[in-house]
């Protein structure tokens, strides 16, 4: 009989009964949370979602379900020996609740207009089996698109049928790897789970987990990070007399020793890292350089072996980029588009509208500021044993280096946030678990629950806030599919607002898709859509005899949410009379007009 068996045999029946009772109570909390969330979701209707998003128009069951899931998670963490199985179940339930809501409410249509563009590349690969449009930047970084095209071809199913579930799949996979990485970095049993729980709230808003190369590359980066931290850590260096060595020794004070490895293991690890990195390089333009910044920072402090690893990675990235540099140059103004980090960090310029947009933007700004400030606090509090936090701190702040070179079309700051968030979550989790608190009062766990809930609901406001804009109804998708099935190839397709599912067809490049240049934030001369003479003249200048003009619920929501394009409502009401548009398709959410030019 094992020690555990002896202990169990010796335990009074009442204690075992109480243990079972507690397991059932914790499990009950997960099931109640999931049940309340599921019932709440069935009561949500897209039409009822306003400018402030899903959370503000959600019912009590939906909100209480999420609270119960997070509360159950923290209650289990607070136990003297938290059970991994229940924590894992809680995390899975939480991730499902966060990321399955929108696909369920919107009938499985993918969120974000740009996802349809990705589906178009996937369909093109599956249909033609080759790069059909070499001038398209997506075709030149094909790893993710080719992989999904293969899945789609093997299943005989269009990627549109499953693309909506990508955020859920990516987040579950990310959480698995993050749990592994965090366990490797900290000995504490609670911190890895708490960090993953926090992370799920922190990154909910940043919207980088949809079917996209960056979500795929991020997942692969986590795998790469595990391999590097498990097998390629430098053995503990002996401090020599030099000033640099003494500085390094001070920085690594308290660091857990590198795991023991053999030469063969390190060789296999380098091959794995090289292969994974090559696929990342072939999938996404920016991610390889964010990774280089992280690996380079670790290398600078001599924490990795072999020392030439960073050179190998840089060579892979450079060799892939060189023949394609023209595309980077034309899309992003070159690898170094600007050396002004503040400008590069300003994000996508919104025409900050009052109401929903302003509120959601403010919430996520506070969330981001809180995340980085708390992380800084966590590092400062461990200043005497910096080695304990050195690796996560380097990986949390190294992504900022990207801002010195690129704005990535205004998106660089979101990638910085994404790549920084896991390590920030780990450092904040450590801070919460190590802060000195009065022992008799459960302040630590109340504070932890408060921080987790604040991160979750702030993140969810960012994710669900613009949902009426970002998500599309099934009828909008049907309308788009009708358009590509019925408009003759070569037709001019016109969108008054850039928020409609388009380009998802395999032959997307056979159409001339034009979005009216009607956004004042472009800064140049922009088109006032209320001025119908200008609109007509702009369309006829495009050189087509006919045009298909689409208006939809999602465009109207976009125009109202962002306050642009101005004049959208006037344009819609005047199309039949002033522009002589003939309705060729109409349903509750979309109308398509055919316009003829003399």
């Amino acid at each position, binding site marked *: 009989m094992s020690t555990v068996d002896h202990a169990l045999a010796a335990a009074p029946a009442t204690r075992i009964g109480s243990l079972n009772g507690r397991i059932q109570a914790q499990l009950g909390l997960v099931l109640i949370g999931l049940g309340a969330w599921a019932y709440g979701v069935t009561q949500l209707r897209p039409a009822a979602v306003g400018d402030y998003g899903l959370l503000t128009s959600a019912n009590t069951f939906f909100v209480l379900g999420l609270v119960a899931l997070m509360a159950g998670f923290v209650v289990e963490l607070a136990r003297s020996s938290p059970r991994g199985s229940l924590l894992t179940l809680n995390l899975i339930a939480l991730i499902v609740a966060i990321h399955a809501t929108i696909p369920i409410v919107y009938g499985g249509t993918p969120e974000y207009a740009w996802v349809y563009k990705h589906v178009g590349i996937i369909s093109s*690969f*599956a249909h*033609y*089996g*080759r*790069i059909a449009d070499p001038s398209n930047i997506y075709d030149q970084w*094909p*790893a*993710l698109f*080719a*992989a999904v*095209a*293969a*899945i*789609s*071809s*093997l*299943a*005989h*199913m269009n990627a549109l*049928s*499953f693309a909506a579930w990508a955020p859920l799949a990516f987040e579950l*996979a990310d959480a*698995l*790897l993050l*749990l*592994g*990485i965090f*366990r*490797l970095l900290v000995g504490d049993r609670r911190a890895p789970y708490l960090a993953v729980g926090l992370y799920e709230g922190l990154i909910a808003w940043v919207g980088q987990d949809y079917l996209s190369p960056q979500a*795929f590359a991020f*997942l*692969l980066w*986590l*795998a790469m990070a*595990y*391999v590097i931290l*498990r097998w390629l850590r430098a053995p503990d260096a002996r401090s020599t007399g030099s000033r640099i060595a003494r500085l390094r020794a001070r920085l690594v004070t308290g660091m857990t020793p590198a*795991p023991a490895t053999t030469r063969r*293991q390190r060789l*296999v690890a380098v091959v*794995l890292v090289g*292969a*994974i990195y*090559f*696929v990342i390089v*072939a*999938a996404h333009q920016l991610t390889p350089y964010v990774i280089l910044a992280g690996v380079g920072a670790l290398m600078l402090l001599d924490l990795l072996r072999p020392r030439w690893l960073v050179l190998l990675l840089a060579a892979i990235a450079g060799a892939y980029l060189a023949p394609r540099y023209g595309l980077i140059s034309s899309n992003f103004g070159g690898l170094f588009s600007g050396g002004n980090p503040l400008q590069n960090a300003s994000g996508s310029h919104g025409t900050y509208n009052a109401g929903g947009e302003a509120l959601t933007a403010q919430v996520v700004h506070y969330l981001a500021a809180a995340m980085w400030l708390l992380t800084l606090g966590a590092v400062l509090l461990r200043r005497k044993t910096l080695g304990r936090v050195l690796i996560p701190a380097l990986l949390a702040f190294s992504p900022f280096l990207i801002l010195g070179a690129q704005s990535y079309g205004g998106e660089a700051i979101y990638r910085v946030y994404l790549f920084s968030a896991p390590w920030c979550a780990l450092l904040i989790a450590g801070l919460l678990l190590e802060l000195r608190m009065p022992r008799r009062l459960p302040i630590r766990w109340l504070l932890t629950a408060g921080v987790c809930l604040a991160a979750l609901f702030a993140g969810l406001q960012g994710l669900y806030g613009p949902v009426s804009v970002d998500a599309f109804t099934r009828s909008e998708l049907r309308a788009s599919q009708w358009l590509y099935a019925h408009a003759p190839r070569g037709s001019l397709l016109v969108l008054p607002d850039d928020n409609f599912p388009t380009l998802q067809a395999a032959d997307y490049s056979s159409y001339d898709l034009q979005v009216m240049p009607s956004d004042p934030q472009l800064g140049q001369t922009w088109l006032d859509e209320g001025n119908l003479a200008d609109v007509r003249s702009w369309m006829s200048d495009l050189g087509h005899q006919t045009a298909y003009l689409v208006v939809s619920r999602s465009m109207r929501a976009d125009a109202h949410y962002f306050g642009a394009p101005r004049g959208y409502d006037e344009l819609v009401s005047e199309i039949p009379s002033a522009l002589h548009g003939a309705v060729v398709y109409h349903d509750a959410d979309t109308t398509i007009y055919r316009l003829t030019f003399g």
Partner: protein
Amino acid sequence: MSRSRSELTAYAGLLSSVLAIALVLGAPTAWLGLIGALLLACVPAGAAVMCWIDAGENAAQAGLTLAVSLTVLALASAIMIWLAAWEPRALLGLAGAAMISCVLRLRVARTAGAAR
């Protein structure tokens, strides 16, 4: 512990390879076919590699199996696109290769067990 983790990976690789091939080739519905294709994408190639490596941690072992599988699938698919030689069914070969690797791993484990 280490051996059981990598052996478990080998069993998972074998099972998923058989299931993936069966579902991709003979699924009665498109959704079952999708499950087969996703299985093929997410497990066999990674299991073929990770059944020889112990990541030292269960979540990491599963996560690396998934990530290595996706890496191999993406690489193989991208090569087919670059060469304009699109034959997605050839990816079933990944499941075949995984079965060989996983069986070999289990045989090595059995031989080592018998020797002890």
